[in-house]
């Protein structure tokens, strides 16, 4: 739970939305109105914050905050 909350805060900060409106099961592309290139920027923030390295291909098929949090957790 902790990972997904931190992740949503990072996303809220980068894309300037209210973190309280984000839910773990949200499709972050649709919710944040971002494309895959912008999602890669979010991945860079994630790497800095969690001190992990996530290859680009790990994002394939990942669309919800919860799924991305799971990817982060397997890498920590």
């Amino acid at each position, binding site marked *: 739970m902790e990972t997904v909350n931190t992740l949503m805060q990072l996303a809220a900060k980068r894309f300037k939305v209210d973190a309280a409106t984000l839910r773990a099961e949200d499709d972050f*592309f*649709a*919710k944040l*109105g971002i494309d*895959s290139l912008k999602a890669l920027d979010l991945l860079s923030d994630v790497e800095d914050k969690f001190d992990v*390295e996530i290859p680009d*291909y*790990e994002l*394939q098929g990942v669309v919800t905050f919860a799924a991305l949090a799971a990817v982060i957790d397997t890498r920590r």
Partner: protein
Amino acid sequence: MIDLSRISSVGEALDDATIMYKSATALIEIDRNREKERISYRDLRADAQRVTALLCASAPVGFPAAREQEEAPFRVAILMSNQAKWLVTATGAFWAGATIVPLDYKLTAPEQVALLRHCRPAVLVTEYSTWRKLDLSDFNNLRVLVTEAPEGESLSGPAGIAVERWEQTAQRAFASVARRRSDIASIVYSSGTGGTPKGCQLTHGNYLAQAEVLASMYPMEEGERYFSILPTNHAIDFMCGFIVPFIMGANVVHQRTLRPQYIVDTMKRYEITHMALVPLILKALKERIQEKLDELPSWQRSMVDGLTRVNELATKREPRHELSRRLLKPIHDGFGGHLKLMFCGGAFVDRDAAEFFYRLGLPVVIGYGLTEAGTVLTVNDLKPFRGDTVGKPVRGTEVQLRNSNPEGVGEVWVRGPTVMAGYLHEPELTADAIQDGWLKTGDLGTLDASGHLKLCGRSKNMIVTEGGKNVYPEDIEAAFDGVKNVEEICAYASSYIWPTGKMTGESLVLVVRPKDGGRVDDASSTVGLGLTDAVIAELRARNRRLTDYKRVAGIIAWSREFPRTASMKVKRDPLKAELAAHEKVAIWKELPQ
């Protein structure tokens, strides 16, 4: 001029290369700022031989004695993102006499499994993270070689699937298997922009003919570096980022992350000379440079403009790389300072973008090809550069227009040494696509007096209006191209789907994704979606400039990234379906005729 006439297979050409250039660097792989691999041709040879030995253990009974591969096919599927192991595996597989099946790593796991089910490979080579997502439970006798599996991880698959590490030492001796020009070298699934994927069977002869043409027209030298960023499964990167550089002793560079900051950094650090792009990326690069130029103080801007004009005059007949580099150094430095050539294809290339780069001394080679017929059928030879066409047919290839209309627009048919053997398991489809050796491309175009081909659109995308006029959506999209604050657009006929919900009264609609658009669930107003009055005014102005029957009736504002194929073409049907499913949150706005 490169002569490959005495070579009978791709494997043989690669074999020669690893002997001829042995001390030169073949591959460099970087992950972010770290160089992970630097492989000489000598090392490539040793590692590919190890892969050959690993693969040979899986060859079906009867292979290679059964010369007709359809009787005992030995297929090796490669499902990997761009990296050195991709090319090592492909080289090893060619030496094993296998038919390789390059699969798109950007597809979803169920889509990848469906393609594997279609081609039934003996071996699948894939990355650990990809393998974990594949459900292979209904496969029998499949061997999976997994790269980069974490240490200590025990690899096991469902019953009937043997899972092993790619990095293991081979237990057998290396033994290469010779192939003939008429043998199938690869099965490449045509992404297409709709419909069922088709497995195009390309022969060794197809590849050798294409490599000979490209290597002769755009030779690379030992030490020159190609930066591989388009997926290697795609025909352009497979040819320009694997076969051609290897047969010329050049160096292929892979960067494991495609985040923009690392791409630019790699181009500088590794002095990249060649790369291939799709039109969408070319356009994005153009916009970035344009923005930087617009920020310059006026005196500096005039200087850049002046130097650009000098460069334009000096390169009127052909590119002059060294001169352009000296004249426009700061711009060239932004691309690493050594870039000589960019290949661009896979979808409709924006003429403005291509001309923009040529003026700056960064030539863009525009070509036209199909998965069904190698990488390029026609290509611009840069003597002189023309951004308005896809060039002339390459040596050995013939282009004809059939069923032309009074304006000279006809269906493009091609014949030549790069046309595939046929679609896998689809004799009827093959018979329909290839007639008397001529491949029906499904594209529409015109030929000018000098033999240059201009494309108008895909015949299946073509819309016939109620007035009987033909409209090409690509044409309309070009008219709305580059509107400020608009990220992407797609034109189509609304037909019976949303918003009208009726079969009659078909009208042209433009789907618009505004830049920094809002979010799908709070799109209560057009402004919320980033569709400002200024954007609408510009769209209206552009619309008015079109001939009446080409004008769009309205726009749909949409905030999701358009679905695209591996070569970044918009997938029109999936986009339409997505819109139909979300009609309540998209915004419809009429544009006056």
